[in-house]
């Protein structure tokens, strides 16, 4: 059997940090052996570690790193369907298939996530309002359950397992492989229109007006602006650039200039991020983005601005940060405004917040996205933050909103249960796939998706 390494690991927010026994299979056989003969009794899969909170850590237990199971298994060039192992990253998919005219059907704000992770959190992107979440493009997937069975799941085959696995935070099994429908594009570029909006009302109106005309839509909100400027934003609307509009100077439809990729080598001292520096950043962002039409931007700059800085999470220092994301129903914009006000007043410094209209939900039992407005922002971690976040959670719940498992780090089990009415159905399906309760994580225990450990004092 392959050996494990004791490692202290965390999510991308770098809080909490837990010691886990990490296994890293390099082939299917390693994984089969690991699960069959006296392997770990309690484990969770982990990809590239980009979920922010405690979804892919398992303190005192085991973690199975899937990153070396990253082989592509097939490619249908006619229909743009790729079959690959769960550890393949979105970056690898782009590097391989964008030069052939195919892009991801849905992408989150980083390409450093695995296909398995994208499925396990049913990730969404700037096109959710029109095109839904990642699971919509998963034709089928292979799930290895703790019994060692390999199950092919799709909306037609083993649908219960499929809809529990998409958005299921890895708690139904290990995602060995998947077939994914890619999206045809003519260039590697996006044409972007920018609209400056003075406050939350104007940005919401602008989103309603423009959303259906554009494939991609997202607003960056200055969450330090107060009073009549509350929710001051820049709405960014994008379309894949058609070949006929490609400037000759670019030199080819899929040519993208390689940029320097700076690294953040060390933790920044926590003083670096203070209300003044954040205010300066947010004000500057607003100032350098006047309303403009038809700017042509390469896919990296448009979809993955932060990927250009490796280890950007270190700017929040040793204590880490949390990314708070909540979706409110369409008719509950009042709740959204209240949350924004609460954050703005508290001066808990954050860089830009992101606001986006979401489309209809998928059928994933624990999938996060549903029709409404989602607000996302980074908040540096402090002890005093947790009670504040609990207040925010109550507000979100009151307006019928919901939090995202890929990001949450602090909500209470009863709040979570109230936000996810299908939780009991999920638990039932998980019970069938994992009768001995081997799949677990810090997140699963914190939110009582699984029972607490018998040895836990709590």
């Amino acid at each position, binding site marked *: 059997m*392959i*050996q*494990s*390494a*004791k490692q202290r690991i965390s999510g991308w927010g770098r809080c909490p940090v837990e010691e886990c026994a*990490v296994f*890293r299979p*390099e*082939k*299917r*056989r*390693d994984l089969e052996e690991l699960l069959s003969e006296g392997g770990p009794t309690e484990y969770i899969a982990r990809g590239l570690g980009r979920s922010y909170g405690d979804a892919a850590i398992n303190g005192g237990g085991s973690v199975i790193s899937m990153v*070396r199971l990253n*082989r*592509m*298994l*097939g*490619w249908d060039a006619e229909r743009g369907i*790729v079959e690959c192992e769960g550890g393949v990253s979105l970056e*690898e998919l782009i590097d*391989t298939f964008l030069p052939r005219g195919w892009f991801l059907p849905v992408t989150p704000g980083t390409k450093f996530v695995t296909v398995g992770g994208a499925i396990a959190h049913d990730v969404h992107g700037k096109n959710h309002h029109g095109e839904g979440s990642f699971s919509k493009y998963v034709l089928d997937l292979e799930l290895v359950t703790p019994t060692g069975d390999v199950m092919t799941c799709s909306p037609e085959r083993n649908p219960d397992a499929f809809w529990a696995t998409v958005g299921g935070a890895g708690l139904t099994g290990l995602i060995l492989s998947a077939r994914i429908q890619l999206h045809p594009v003519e260039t590697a570029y996006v044409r972007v229109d920018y609209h400056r909006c003075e406050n939350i009302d104007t940005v919401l109106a602008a989103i309603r007006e423009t959303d259906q005309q554009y494939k991609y839509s997202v607003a960056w909100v200055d969450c330090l602006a107060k009073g009549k400027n509350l929710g001051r934003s820049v709405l960014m609307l994008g379309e894949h650039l058609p070949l006929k509009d490609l400037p000759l100077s670019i030199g080819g439809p899929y040519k993208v200039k390689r940029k320097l990729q700076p690294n953040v080598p060390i933790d920044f001292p926590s003083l670096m991020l203070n209300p003044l520096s954040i205010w300066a950043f947010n004000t500057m962002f607003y100032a350098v983005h006047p309303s403009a039409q038809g700017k042509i931007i390469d896919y990296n700059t448009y979809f993955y601005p932060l990927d250009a800085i490796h280890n950007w999470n270190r700017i929040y220092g040793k204590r880490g940060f949390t990314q708070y994301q909540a979706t409110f129903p369409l008719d509950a914009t009042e709740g959204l405004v209240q949350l924004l006000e609460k954050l703005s007043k508290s001066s808990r410094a954050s860089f830009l917040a992101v606001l986006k209209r979401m489309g209809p939900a998928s059928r994933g039992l624990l999938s996060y996205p549903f029709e409404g407005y989602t607000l996302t922002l980074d908040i540096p971690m402090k002890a005093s933050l947790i009670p504040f976040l609990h207040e925010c959670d109550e507000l979100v719940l009151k307006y019928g909103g919901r939090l995202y498992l890929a990001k949450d780090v602090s909500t209470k089990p009863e709040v979570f249960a109230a936000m996810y009415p299908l939780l009991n159905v999920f638990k039932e399906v998980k019970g069938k796939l994992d009768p001995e309760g081997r799949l677990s994580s810090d997140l699963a225990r914190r939110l009582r998706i699984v029972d607490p450990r018998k040895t836990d004092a709590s």
Partner: protein
Amino acid sequence: MSNANGQSIVILGATSSVARALAHEFARRGSPLIFAARDTDDAAVIAVDTEVRFGVPTQVVRFDADRMENLPRTLERCLEVADGDIGGVVLCYGYMDEQKKAQADPDIAERTMNINLTSAVIVLEQFAAYFADRKAGFIAALSSVAGDRGRQSNYLYGASKAGLTAYLQGLRNRMAPCGVPVTTIKPGFMDTKMTFGLPGLFLVASPEQAGQAIHYAIVRKKDVVYVPWFWRYIMLIIRHVPEKIFKRMKM
């Protein structure tokens, strides 16, 4: 170098993460690949992966360095599946068990020598004759820094790799007149299945970094390279500690 001219590159021991990363470097530049491995199921997955990513033809050949009786036909079997000529061979496999076990169990000691040294000699001689005849091609092999000096913590593995290093040195000397480069790769710490979870590793190279460095060394027809490069200097120091002192050190 025989890249992208349709000549196949043979990767012996193709299922390690470093071998795969190296294969990707060749495939990226258009070379067809022949993956020789014991685990042909996994090699087939790696072959398909390489085809999907880089659109080059690939083949899989069953190859088990521990089965001496099959080794003399290695080149023949590669030629059977190759579409055209073979342009180069890279030996990527190795066998390392715990030193203490190898000391106590002659089978493990023998296996270490057989896989790391004897099989390499039997196989590479076939390729050497083939390339010498054609006055073209290249040979590269992954030896180890462990072969630079015997240490109590893994001298059996180290001895087998020292033998391989000396063998490659001689082969390089023999092949130089026919213009066939022989490259000895000496990896330091790499983040592989062999080393995952071992304590005391530092400045570990990822398989991708190692693959790029090894490919570069082969293309530039280097003689001996350390991967990562600074291991040359670490080993320079280690090799120069006087034996009187070295024999009392705990390494």
